């Protein structure tokens, strides 16, 4: 059997590699970088999909997020639109229709968002006022840290009560607990009845077009409608534009995750039939996840190809050096054959040596490949994730490269005519 005396071959191989430390080291560089890049690329790919999964978790995989969007301006209407009130976006009627008509909708949470300054004891913080309904925290998975959230009674009375996001509360008051105190939203005084956790699902940190949750004040939707109106005046560089928006967004929770995409389609067609213009947009986190997975697959394919090329180059380098080694040790091969080594013994000896060489390169590559993603994360902020299976895969590949590219030189050594080899000086 050619692989009978493995330990002997391993010892032999190690001593012969140790005899040429520099050469062995340089030879393995190709494998080192190949393996490192395999791990690195998988780490980046995994990081991408981890990030996507986290974002989706934040947005809620059962959620469908609707946002009002300013419709594209009709060409030629630019001048006239200056003094006209632009009306667009989701309406209360939309929300009502979705809640009653679309099957599978568990709950729908409409929001109005108005940028206003919040005042507290002379301190001012620019923040977003969110007019919403009592079940807002549950759909976004945000915890109430103190006090209570808005109630149906607040809604009915359009009460001047508000709930601050924890980050905003900290910024406004420092060590002072603002609970049960009064804050001013613009010019209106509101009583703080609760503190809500800043981040949650459905509130899209890092998603364009979604409101930030850091500095947020929640008030009853009815109060927002009553006190702040639906007209938003925007003064910019001397020109003035007015917009009328009933609702800025709505989060729909679908009761079964299997039906999310289908429900989204139904909502889309429903909205389409009542809106002349595309003045809303729909974000389906599940769809985003699928898209990100597709991007990741593509990315993995491209980088996988690059890693494969570098492993190929590394393998060829190893083959090259092993061929040199075989011809350099021709006389040794002759001697071994003369004293009774079979072809298989010689084959196994050189093959073992190559596998050791590439395996060693693989180990160094793994160290590098585990370290590099950390560096990438630090330098670029891209999240990376080194998984155990990627390390195993990389090591397996390096050993395989050794086997494949070691076979030809080893076979050449084994096929040598012992008489010719012995005569070789």
């Amino acid at each position, binding site marked *: 059997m050619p692989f*009978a*005396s493995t330990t*002997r071959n391993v010892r032999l191989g190690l*001593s*012969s590699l140790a*005899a040429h430390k520099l050469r062995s080291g340089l030879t393995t560089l190709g494998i080192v970088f190949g393996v490192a890049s395999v791990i690195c690329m998988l780490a980046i790919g995994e990081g991408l999909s981890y990030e996507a999964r986290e974002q989706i978790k934040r947005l809620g995989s059962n959620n469908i997020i609707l946002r009002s969007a300013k419709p594209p301006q009709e060409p030629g209407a630019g001048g006239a639109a200056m003094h006209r009130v632009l009306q667009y976006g989701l309406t209360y009627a939309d929300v009502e229709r979705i809640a009653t008509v679309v099957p599978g909708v568990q709950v729908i949470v409409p929001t109005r968002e108005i940028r206003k300054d919040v005042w507290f004891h002379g301190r001012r913080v620019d923040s977003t006022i969110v007019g919403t309904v009592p079940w807002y925290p549950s759909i976004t998975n945000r915890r109430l840290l103190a006090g209570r959230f808005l109630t149906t009674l607040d809604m009915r009375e359009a009460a001047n009560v508000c709930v601050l996001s924890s980050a905003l509360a900290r910024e406004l008051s420092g060590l002072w607990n603002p609970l049960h105190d009064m804050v001013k939203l613009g010019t209106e005084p509101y009583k703080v009845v609760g503190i809500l956790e800043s981040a949650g699902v459905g509130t899209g940190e890092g998603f364009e077009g979604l409101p930030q949750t850091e500095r947020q004040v929640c008030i009853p939707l009815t109060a927002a409608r009553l006190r702040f109106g639906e007209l938003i005046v925007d003064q910019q560089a001397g020109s003035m534009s007015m917009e009328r928006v009933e609702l800025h967004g709505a989060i729909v929770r679908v009761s079964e995750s299997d039906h999310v995409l289908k429900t989204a389609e139904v909502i889309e067609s429903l909205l389409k039939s009542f809106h002349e213009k595309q003045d809303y947009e729909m974000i389906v986190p599940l769809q985003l996840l699928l898209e990100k997975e597709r991007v990741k697959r593509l990315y993995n394919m491209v980088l996988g190809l690059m890693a494969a090329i570098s492993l190929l180059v590394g393998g060829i380098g190893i083959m090259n050096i092993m061929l040199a080694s075989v011809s350099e040790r021709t*006389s*040794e091969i*002759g*001697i*071994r*054959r*003369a*004293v*009774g*080594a*079979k*072809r*298989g*013994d010689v084959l196994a000896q050189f093959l073992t040596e190559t596998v050791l060489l590439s395996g060693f390169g693989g180990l160094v590559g793994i160290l590098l490949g585990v370290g590099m993603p950390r560096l990438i994360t630090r330098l670029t902020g891209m999240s990376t994730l080194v998984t155990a299976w990627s390390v195993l895969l990389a090591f397996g590949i390096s050993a395989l490269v050794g086997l494949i590219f070691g076979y030809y030189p080893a076979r050449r050594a084994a096929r040598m005519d*012992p*008489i010719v080899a*012995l005569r070789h*000086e």
Partner: protein
Amino acid sequence: MNIVEASGLSKIHRMGEVSVAALQGVSLKVRSGEFVAVSGPSGSGKSTLLNLLGCLDTPTSGTYRLAGRDVSAMDDDALSEIRRDRIGFIFQSFNLIPQLSVVENIGLPLIYADVSASERRERARRLAETVGLAHRTAHRPAELSGGELQRVAIARALANDPVLILADEPTGNLDSRTGREIMALLQQLWRRGATLVVVTHEENIARQASRNIHLVDGRVERDTATAGAL
């Protein structure tokens, strides 16, 4: 008992269109305990004969029985085993592995016989003593003199307790005094019962053998018993 029984051994090397007969119908019997010197001009087929006797090569035609076993039709693996178990080689240029120590070089054939490391070391050490190198066991070939190198090679040839020891110009790379010492060592082996076939072109070495075979153009021209060292 005949160690070597060869009849009609021929070896024809094919070089493209041309065929060169290195050996043409050599028949030869070597009894156990004989010391045979093979001489002849260069190109007479001495080395080819030695390679065939040593199972490094197979004859184009003819049969060869080594210690009773027909080896002329064996495959490469079987021939390797024969070399491993029954034959000891001594070369003109010593052919030691430079990276290995004296003991490791001596023990090399035992590796392929799957002898355990400790036993290998033990046997190699005893053989080193036999050839007078007990004080050099840990050295590498580069640190030894020519005579010492050939002693290592002889010890290696003895490692597997061979039935036949083959030497190809064993003194060819040595000065005359060292050459005499090596021949004395071979004589000593012979007296203890070893069977030797030595290829040489030196008259005084051939004279030390018990039998002289003279090859010319791949044929046995003369086969004479000599007084040898007796």
